[in-house]
């Protein structure tokens, strides 16, 4: 009797997984646009006094290119990985008071987290070329490691965080421009 009930419950759970409401597995452009707008309006242009703290970090353009339809999945994964790195960078470290006092930072973190949560299915998509994806992932990893190194070097001061904000804005803008094409 107990075994029968257990079997029915398992069957129901399996059906729930299979027949669940289909989730759209695509990044919403309007959410990425909102992220860019919120981050941009948090501090305005790069502060003049922080120019000394600016370090030129090469941007991995190749990670966001998709010339063919087969590379679209790789592009989606690159965007997803970028969002993960941004979320990790801003959540794992102490942020400057000039940012935390604003609601916009809270909203930004909300949307980034939601994009990651709702689009986990992107990483389970298969792409034609695994090598291409691995190259993209490596370039993105190196890029965000360089930004983190600057933050550590500058002891997470305000100008270091403004540098990080500048790079994140650049990445989001590149994603939006590439997506429109």
């Amino acid at each position, binding site marked *: 009797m107990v075994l029968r009930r257990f079997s029915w419950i398992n069957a129901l759970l399996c059906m729930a997984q299979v027949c669940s409401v289909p989730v759209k597995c695509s990044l919403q452009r*309007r959410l990425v646009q909102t992220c860019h707008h919120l981050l941009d309006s948090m501090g305005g242009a790069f502060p003049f006094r922080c120019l000394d703290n600016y370090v030129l970090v090469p941007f991995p353009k190749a990670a966001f290119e998709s010339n063919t339809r087969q590379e679209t999945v790789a592009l989606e994964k690159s965007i997803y990985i970028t969002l993960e790195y941004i979320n990790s960078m801003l*959540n794992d470290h102490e942020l400057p008071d000039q940012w935390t006092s604003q609601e916009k930072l*809270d*909203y930004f973190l*909300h949307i*980034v*987290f*939601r994009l990651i*949560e709702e689009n986990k299915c992107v990483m389970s998509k298969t792409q034609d070329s695994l090598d291409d994806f691995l190259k993209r992932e490596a370039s993105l990893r190196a890029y965000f490691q360089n930004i983190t190194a600057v933050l550590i070097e500058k002891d997470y001061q305000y100008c270091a965080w403004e540098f990080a904000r500048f790079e994140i804005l650049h990445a989001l803008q590149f994603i939006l421009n590439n997506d429109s094409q």
Partner: protein
Amino acid sequence: MYRRKHVLVFTLLVCWGITSMANLPRPRNVRPQTLNTDYILKWDWDQTASSESSTTFTAQSLAKYKVKNAKRKNDWKTVCECTSEHHCDFTGAELYYLGMWLLRVRAQNESHVSSWVQIEFCPDRDAAIGPPSAVEVKPVKGMLEVAISDPLTSENTSMKDWHLSSHSILQKKKQLVITTNLVTLPDLETWTVYCVRVQSRYDFYNKSSTFSPIHCEQTEGQMPYWQIFLYFLLSLAVSFLLVLGLSFCFFKSFKAIKNTFYPSIQLPTHIQEYLCDSPGSDMPHLLTTESEVEICCDRLDILAADTVATDVVMEIHNPPQDSEQDGRNHIRHSSGDSGVYSTEEGTGASQALKEGEKVKLEKMGKQPGDERALSCSAAALSALSHLLPVVRKPTASHC
């Protein structure tokens, strides 16, 4: 072996502790009830499950992105604390519409608390959208123009600030999906009534609102010629009746005014003059305004014919001049008379006799100088004989 026993005992103790603390049943069927940005968390609670009647509930919220942050994962914000209601209004909790939230509720009484019941809530994904706040339909050049107002948030701002929505217009059996707030419905017949209702849609999450109230409007167009002619005739008839009525009223009022101030029937001339009271008129007047009119009546004794033949004494006095004559009543026959009076007895009689002219008729025969007095007296007697049939003997002389 010894270590395993320790772990087992510890686990049992922890479970027993949790059970003893949380032996109050948890709220059931926790679900959000939403519309635009109005969020109400509802739950069911079986009152018989708790022996005490004073069971209250606490509801909290937390941004989901903070869960993985060690420092911020306990930043739960209490929205409803110790409420006896089975719902909690999260509208004022400032839940970011595009964010992901954790909402939780638990029951508690004086001695026990239940464990938390937690749900995930994303307003952008889970909140229902309302219909357009206003819909206006008006005819424009044979078509219908539909103006749609966006659904509103709890702060009366447009819901389009949060997500791009479209509107679905249902007209008869046709459905039109638009993303703008103003649309003109094409391909409509003229002079036909069309009914329209509008629904808000959010296609990404397949959300749609209820329909707005139905609005019916008639299209316009070029008026048929027979209708134009009919309206013309009607207006002509109405104008004619109006002019006729006004003319009739004017004529009646003119006639009434004319009859009032300028009557056609005139009074006789002498009456007009009488009423005008002209001083130069020859008509006899009963009363004159020139002098004070006094009616003096004196006592008059009329004797029988056989007794009158002997001594008839009459006195003729001039009209009294002073107030001593108030007690007398004078009768003046006419201005043409010689002034024959018949006076009553009064205190001033002797004075009057002295002042007045005294005529004494001792006999019926005439005497020189008495013709005037005789004619007057004869006339007076004849007049009086008609008026007063009462006769008695003369008493004292009035002389």
